[in-house]
């Protein structure tokens, strides 16, 4: 009887069905060369672990140390914030490595126009491949009470997924919540249709959630696994880094904001009072 590496490997991890496991155990007893292979496979695991551990001997790069050093971190934030003002890029690590996508100018232009509340949504639809009906109807433009997307933006904590009723089950999840420098709340939503996905940034304005920026990302629920291209994400992240005040909301602050219905009226009143 021959035992494949796959069986042997699964046997090693105790992952074979009882019958298969018994057959493999029997074969190991009766076949010395199979036994040798099995023992070598155990050594292979240790050998691989040893090789991966070799990186422990290499010093942690300074940039990475700084990133996780509390004091260094706040200094870096300051630095990256002033960089943000200069060139709109906050991801210092990718700055020099970032390949500017071919359609970058078009994307940037379409999104730049969408920034600025009250200026209206001037997103170039051409940049968003036709998404599913669910996305078109509920993921774009001004979101008002009664819309399922409004419910998501208004009440769902980050990480909770809304599944559309349409066949194919388009999905939407809030992935980031933050406050802008002028005191508004914004939330980034990942939407997946069956063939197309969107990353969209909404900001609360009075009783509505308004789309501020949106980019198409490849893949969808039909593919099971959706890696968004970072080039596209960079565009959204640039928008976020221009708007964001400090760090994203913690879960606790997010919960508070949801509880208070994203009310920034108090803040606005305070500002007005100040000016009077």
């Amino acid at each position, binding site marked *: 009887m021959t035992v494949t590496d796959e069986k042997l490997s699964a046997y090693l991890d105790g992952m074979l069905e009882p019958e298969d496991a018994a057959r493999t155990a029997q074969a190991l007893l009766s076949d010395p060369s199979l036994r040798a292979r099995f023992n070598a496979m155990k050594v292979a695991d240790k050998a691989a672990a040893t090789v991966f551990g070799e990186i*422990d001997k290499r010093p942690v790069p300074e940039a990475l140390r700084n990133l996780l050093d509390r004091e260094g971190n706040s200094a870096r934030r300051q630095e990256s914030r002033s960089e943000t003002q200069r060139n709109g890029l906050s991801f210092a*690590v990718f700055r020099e490595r970032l390949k500017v996508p071919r359609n970058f100018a078009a994307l940037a232009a379409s999104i730049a126009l969408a920034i600025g509340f009250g200026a209206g949504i001037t997103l170039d639809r051409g940049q968003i491949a036709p998404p599913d009906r669910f996305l078109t109807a509920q993921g774009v433009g001004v979101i008002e009470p009664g819309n399922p997307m409004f419910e998501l933006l208004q009440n769902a904590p980050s990480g909770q997924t809304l599944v559309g009723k349409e066949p194919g089950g388009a999905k939407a999840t809030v992935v980031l919540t933050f406050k802008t420098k002028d005191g508004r709340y914004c939330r980034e939503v990942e939407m997946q249709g069956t063939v197309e996905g969107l990353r969209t940034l909404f900001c609360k304005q009075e009783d509505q959630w308004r789309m501020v920026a949106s980019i198409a990302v490849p893949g969808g629920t039909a593919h099971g696994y959706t890696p968004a291209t970072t080039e596209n994400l960079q565009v959204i992240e640039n928008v976020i880094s221009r708007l964001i005040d400090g760090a994203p909301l913690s879960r606790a602050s997010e919960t508070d904001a949801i509880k208070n219905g994203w009310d920034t009226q108090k803040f606005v009143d305070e500002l007005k009072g100040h000016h009077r």
Partner: protein
Amino acid sequence: MEKILQDFQDGLIAALPRLRRFAYALTGSMADADDLTQATVERALLKRSMLREGSNPDGWLFKICRNIWIDEIRRKTARREVAETSEKDEPMVDGNKVMEDRLEVARIEEVLKSMPDDQRAVIFLVAAEGYTYREAAEIMGCPTGTIMSKLARARGRITDILLSKEAKS
């Protein structure tokens, strides 16, 4: 708020060695691994509200790490390989150092480097870090059957090297 950020950073510092090893397993290059680790930490800091309480932060970081690797860096591998040859001149492994089982790390390293990224990442997760097939599948975004076959292929290749070495000695 500040306290939460500090806790999160402490968690990242604790996870850093494992994250680096995973990045090394994924990229097969220490230089790429450090770039990737840095990018992962940056992304994790930005997206930290996505980490659910009670979930495994390592698994979460590994997923972020793998996504960035797929998206951002693999395209540049060809360019990086040129630079990589100079890294070989640095003594990453002491030539005289021999593993317990008398096999050179370098030889295993070589066969690991020749494997597809995902095979290396899977053998790291299951064989070196003790993740279950299901957990590894979650991190790698593939079915457990794929984990099983990738793991068997990776183990098989190292095993071949080990056995051929034994036959020679």
